[in-house]
């Protein structure tokens, strides 16, 4: 996974609340067994009509927004299904961050696993960004989002931040706790299939 450095870009505005993962990647693309190449399916049913032609009124088809690395969204972004394909598609399309007032839990977690930074900002700040198409700088190590008129702070827990900043493999890190895991299994594990109860 690519480490997350400072990100500078304008944002692509997606002005809808409760965008669910069924919209981010429709189910017909979940049959694929690889992890890459999902960008072309991002928001598929909103982006393309039934003949597969781009819909003019959808924001991703507006040339003005081509190449932008920040997706700007509304409340409860990423609700619904746990499909990580949603994060893969957003990342593969070229976004490195999503800014919204709130995210659904599973989607929020999935982002960090894929080099994608979800940023929660206050509703007023998000409104401001929807109204003003300005250059945005996201500095993860300082936890700030800066625009010409001001700098905003955002929350992210230290552990996730470290994983993203350094592009670390969280499984490798967990495996360093092998002793603790084995001790748990010996002393506290409940209901292994042998039906011996350890309590």
């Amino acid at each position, binding site marked *: 996974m690519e480490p997350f450095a400072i990100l500078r870009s304008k944002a692509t505005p997606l002005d809808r609340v409760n965008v669910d993962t069924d919209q981010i990647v429709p189910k017909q693309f979940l049959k694929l067994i690889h992890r890459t190449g999902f960008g072309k399916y991002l928001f598929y049913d909103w982006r393309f009509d039934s003949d597969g032609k781009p819909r003019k009124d959808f924001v991703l088809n507006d040339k003005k927004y081509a190449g932008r690395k920040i997706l700007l969204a509304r409340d409860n972004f990423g609700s619904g299904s746990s499909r990580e394909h949603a994060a893969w598609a957003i990342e593969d399309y070229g976004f490195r961050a999503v800014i919204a007032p709130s995210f659904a*839990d599973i989607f929020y977690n999935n982002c960090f696993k894929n080099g994608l930074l979800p940023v929660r900002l206050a509703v007023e700040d998000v409104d401001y960004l929807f109204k003003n198409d300005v250059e945005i700088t996201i500095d993860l190590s300082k936890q700030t989002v800066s625009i010409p008129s001001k700098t905003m702070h955002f929350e992210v*827990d230290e552990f996730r931040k470290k994983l993203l900043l350094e592009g670390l493999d*969280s499984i490798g890190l*967990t495996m360093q706790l092998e002793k603790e895991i084995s001790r*748990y299994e010996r002393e506290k594990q409940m209901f292994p299939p042998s039906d011996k*109860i350890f309590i």
Partner: protein
Amino acid sequence: MASARTIFEKIWDNHVIYTRENGPSLLYIDRHLVHEVTSPQAFDGLRLNRRKVRRPDLTFATMDHNVPTTARSLPIVDQISATQIRTLAQNCKEFGIPLFDMQSPDQGIVHVIGPELGITLPGTTIVCGDSHTSTHGAFGAFALGIGTSEVEHVLATQTLWLDRPKTFAINLEGLRKNNHAVTAKDMILHVIRTIGTAGGTGYVFEYRGTAVSDLSMEQRMTICNMSIEGGARAGLVAPDNKTFDYLQDRRYAPKGDDLDKAIEYWKGLQTDASATYDKSVTFDVGQLAPQVSWGTNPGMVVSVSDSVPHPDEYARGNENERKAALRSLEYMALKAGTPITDIKVDRVFIGSCTNSRLEDLVEASLVVKGRHVSPSVRAMVVPGSQHVKTAAESLGLDKVFIDAGFEWRESGCSMCLGMNPDILAPGERCASTSNRNFEGRQGTGGRTHLVSPVMAAAAAIKGHFVDVREWL
């Protein structure tokens, strides 16, 4: 003596292996359920890093999302689906994971077979790469959906990093007036309509109160299933005698002395009297009517006796929600003010991990018996598992449905998400017992109304929604 805790906090404390300062905790995972759609990339990751599955004995796999619901002897026509299904079989073989495949008498929707086989137990942590893992919370387990990277993490380490969610008591009090017509599905749809689809974000629900104790295990599963539609990480019900009775003689559940010991332990898994919740809300189900969704998220719901709401009325001053409601009405081709019972349906789907268990089918059959599906409707029943299917057939339910003009299918997720050939055509309107009414969920351009099995059955007969309280 530790301070008073909720059941969720007890389960959490019992599973913490390690906690990072100001960060997440590492939890031990007791059961990991795997299906074909969210696992192939996880197994690839293991191979790439030469890692093994740490506890294949705690991991169980089945095929459900993609499988055709036509006769099992027929080949899978969709080659991409066939590849995904074959890939799961190969991965299970390579990594030594037990698999209930398409030919297995135990096959079914992952959230239906877990409880059925006794894999789901009170006090355990259960994960699956599927958001409706919350279903298993009905047994007093902490059960949550995870993404594919986390699936890989659990396969490799049998653990998961989590921030401790907050607690949210959903008190359901009173008793329903008509237990057949007003169901667990109506209770949970009503809850989501009230708290909103993000109302539970960051929380674990605990469903409590007389109306919850009153429910059977299968009905509790229906409620817990849709916790995720309320935005919650998980939802659970404290175990009681109904839970313990259900677990008797289930294949992977403890037996004999072990079961007695387990029950002693499970009895302690209750919220202490003086424990507090971060949030709570109380409902009286006494006056509850059958519920029907009218929009494109599971919070857009009204009573069957009401009309499609006006966007202003729905949004209560929130401009973004008003826009969403307008968009939903357009997508659903509905006008504000239309009585729900005037809405005609083209398709009816009785199935999904929300409502495809034996009781659901028995209840729906009471509505269907001796009647016939409207000529303008195509209706199907998809049992949640092979065990549900055979049990229903031994009660003669297949005949009741087939005689009434329903299709009677093999088990799987089917039209809940339409990854297999069971999908809506663009513009078709469906009364569905599933859990999501998102745009295109059941087929691009398809229009979904979420209802209970008895409401779906009645809509199939009449060709439009009816207040099933008049029938039962």
